[in-house]
C-alpha cells in the first residue's frame, strides 16, 4: 500500500509541487523586474548574456589556485549527476514510462558505475569543503546541508536499488527523489534554473559596458 502511494499519488504530488514551485520562484524573479538602463550601450547586451551563460561554466583562471577544490569537486559532481540523470538505464526507462513516452540511448553498466563514483566523489568533497573551510562554513546555512544530505541520500539509495532486484529499495529511492522534488523549489537547488538568469543579467550588463564577463 505504501509502495502504491509512493509510486502513484506521492509521485504526482511531488512533481506538481516541483513544477509549480519552480514556476513560482522564476515568476517572482521576473515580476520584480529590472529597470531599463538609460546609459548608451557600448556593446551588444543579448550577445553578452548568451556568451556569459556559457563561458561561466568554464574555470576562471584568477581563482584556479584558491578555489581549486570547489571547482574540481563542482565539475565532478555536476557532470557525474548530469550523466546519471540523463543516461542511466533505469532513469531513461522511468522517463519513457512516466513522462516522455519514449526512451533514448543509455550508458553501459560500467559507465553508470563510473558516473556514480564521479558524482559521489564530487558531492562528498563539496560537503567536506563546506564544513572544513572557514569561508564556506560561515556562509552555509541549515538549508545548504539539507540539500547536500538529500542529494546524497537520493544518490545512495539509487546505488542500492541499482540491481533492481528489491522493490523496496527502488521505492526507497523514488521516495527520497520525491522528497528532493518537494524541497527543491524552496532551496538553493533552484540554481539549476536561475543560473541562466543570473549569468544572463551579468553578461548583458557588462557587455553593454564593453566588458567580456
Amino acid at each position, binding site marked *: 500500500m505504501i509502495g502504491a502511494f509512493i509510486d502513484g499519488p506521492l509521485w504526482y504530488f511531488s512533481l506538481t509541487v516541483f513544477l509549480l514551485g519552480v514556476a513560482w520562484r522564476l515568476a517572482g524573479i*521576473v515580476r520584480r523586474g529590472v529597470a531599463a538602463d538609460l546609459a548608451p550601450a557600448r556593446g551588444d547586451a543579448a550577445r553578452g548574456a548568451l556568451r556569459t551563460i556559457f563561458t561561466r561554466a568554464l574555470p576562471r583562471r584568477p581563482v584556479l589556485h584558491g578555489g581549486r577544490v570547489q571547482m574540481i569537486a563542482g565539475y565532478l559532481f555536476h557532470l557525474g549527476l548530469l550523466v546519471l540523470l540523463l543516461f542511466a538505464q533505469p532513469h531513461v526507462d522511468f522517463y519513457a514510462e512516466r513522462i516522455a513516452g519514449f526512451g533514448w540511448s543509455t550508458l553501459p553498466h560500467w559507465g553508470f558505475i563510473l558516473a556514480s563514483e564521479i558524482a559521489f566523489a564530487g558531492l562528498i568533497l563539496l560537503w567536506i569543503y*563546506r564544513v572544513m573551510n572557514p*569561508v564556506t562554513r560561515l556562509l552555509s546555512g541549515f538549508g545548504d546541508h539539507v540539500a547536500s544530505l538529500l542529494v546524497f541520500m537520493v544518490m545512495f539509495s539509487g546505488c542500492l536499488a541499482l540491481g533492481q532486484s528489491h522493490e523496496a529499495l527502488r521505492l526507497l529511492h523514488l521516495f527520497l527523489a520525491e522528497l528532493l522534488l518537494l524541497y527543491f523549489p524552496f532551496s*538553493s537547488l533552484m540554481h539549476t534554473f536561475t543560473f541562466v538568469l543570473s*549569468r544572463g543579467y551579468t553578461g548583458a550588463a557588462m557587455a553593454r559596458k*564593453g566588458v567580456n564577463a
Partner: protein
Amino acid sequence: MSERIERAREEMSKQVDGKVAAYFSSCVRCGLCAEACHFHVETNDPRFAPIYKLEPMRKVWRREQTLGGRLSGFFSSRDELREEDFAEWEELVYDSCNLCGRCSMVCPLGIDLAYMLRRQRSAFAVAGYVPEGMRTALQRTLELGSPMGVSLKTIDATLEQVEKRCGLKVPVDRKGAEYMTIFSSMEVVNFPEYIESLALIFDAAGLSWTLSSRAFEATNAGIQVGDNAAAREIVERIVSAAEELGVRYVISPECGHAYTAIRWEGPNLIGRPYRFEVVHILELLDRLQRDGRLQIGSRSDRPMTLHDPCQIVRRGGVVDPPRHLLAAVASGFVEMRDHGTMNWCCGGGGGVSANERAEQLRLRVFKRKKRQLDELGVDTLVTACANCRIVLEEGLEHYEMDTEVISLTELIAVHLK
C-alpha cells in the same frame, strides 16, 4: 523598530530587483568570490567574503521572496532586518569593499556582487550607518561643490598657475565648445599637472573645449555612500551645465568612480538620457591618436607597468585604450600578472580612501599590489585615476618601495610631438 530603520528596511526591499533576486536564488554559498577579493585573500578573514557582506540584503530577500522566509516570518522575527545588522555590517560594507567588482568576474553562477553591494549601500545610507569620512565628503560636495572643499576660487587659482606654466589659456564657460572637461578635486589639489597636460594635448590636437564654472567636480560621493538623492543632485549639476553650454561631449577625467558616476549611473539617476555624450579621457586620447590628431614625438624606454583603475576598466569597459596609448609612448611597457578586467584594486576605491577608519586595513591589503609590482621589478607605475594614484603612492611609501607613479595623460603630454 525606529522609523529610520523601517525606512532603511523599505529601501533595502526596493533595492531587491529582479537581478538581485536571481542572484540570491542562484548563490550556492561556494565561497569562490572570496578568492577574488583582496580583503579576504590578504587577511584570511572569512567575513570578508563578498557574499557574506550582503547578508543584510539577503535577509530581506529571503523574508520577502522565499516561501521558507515568509513562513518563518510568521513564527519568528529572527530573520528581520534590525538596527544591529546595520551596525555590525557597516565595516564590511564600506571599509572592506572597494566595489571593484573582481568578485563579480569569477562567480560560476554569474552573480554580480558589486552591483548588489552598491545597491545595499543605499539602505545603509538611509539607516545612517555610513563612515564619518565618507559622510563628510558627501556633505562638502553638496554644500561646497566638491568632496575636498575645492571651490571656484581654488579652481581659478589653479588655472592661473597652469596657464602660467604652459602658456596656454584654459577656456571657461565657452558656449558652443565641443568638449566640456570636468575634474576630480584630487586632480585640482594634488595633481594640477593633469590639467596642464590636458591644455597641452587639446591645444596640439586643435580641440574646442571648455570648463564650466558651475560644474567642475566629477567625483560623486553620493554613489560611494549610496545616497541616491545626493548622487542625482551631483550628476544633475554636470548635466545642466553641459546642456546649457551646448557641448557635444563631456570628458570624464582620470578618475574611476567619476567615470562610473557620469557615464553609467548618471542617466539612470536622473531618469533620462543626456543630450551629450560622455567620453573618458583615455578613450578620447586613443581616438585622437588613431585619427592622427595626436602626434607622439618620442618614446620612453623605461620599464613600466599599468595599474588598471577598476571603474574605468573592469566596470567601465575602457580596456584597450590605455594599452594602445602606452604602447605608443613606452617601449618598456609590461603587463602585471593579473591585469585588465582581472586587475587587483589599489584598495582605495568605493570610498575606502575617504574612510580614515579603514586606513590600516587598506594598507594591509595593498600587499597584493606590492607583490604584483615585486614580480615585475619595474620602477614606474602608470595609472589613469587620481584616487588610485594617491592610494598607490601611500601604499608604496608605507612599504618603502621605490616606485614612481605617473598619470597616463601626463605621460602622453610629455611625449607630444
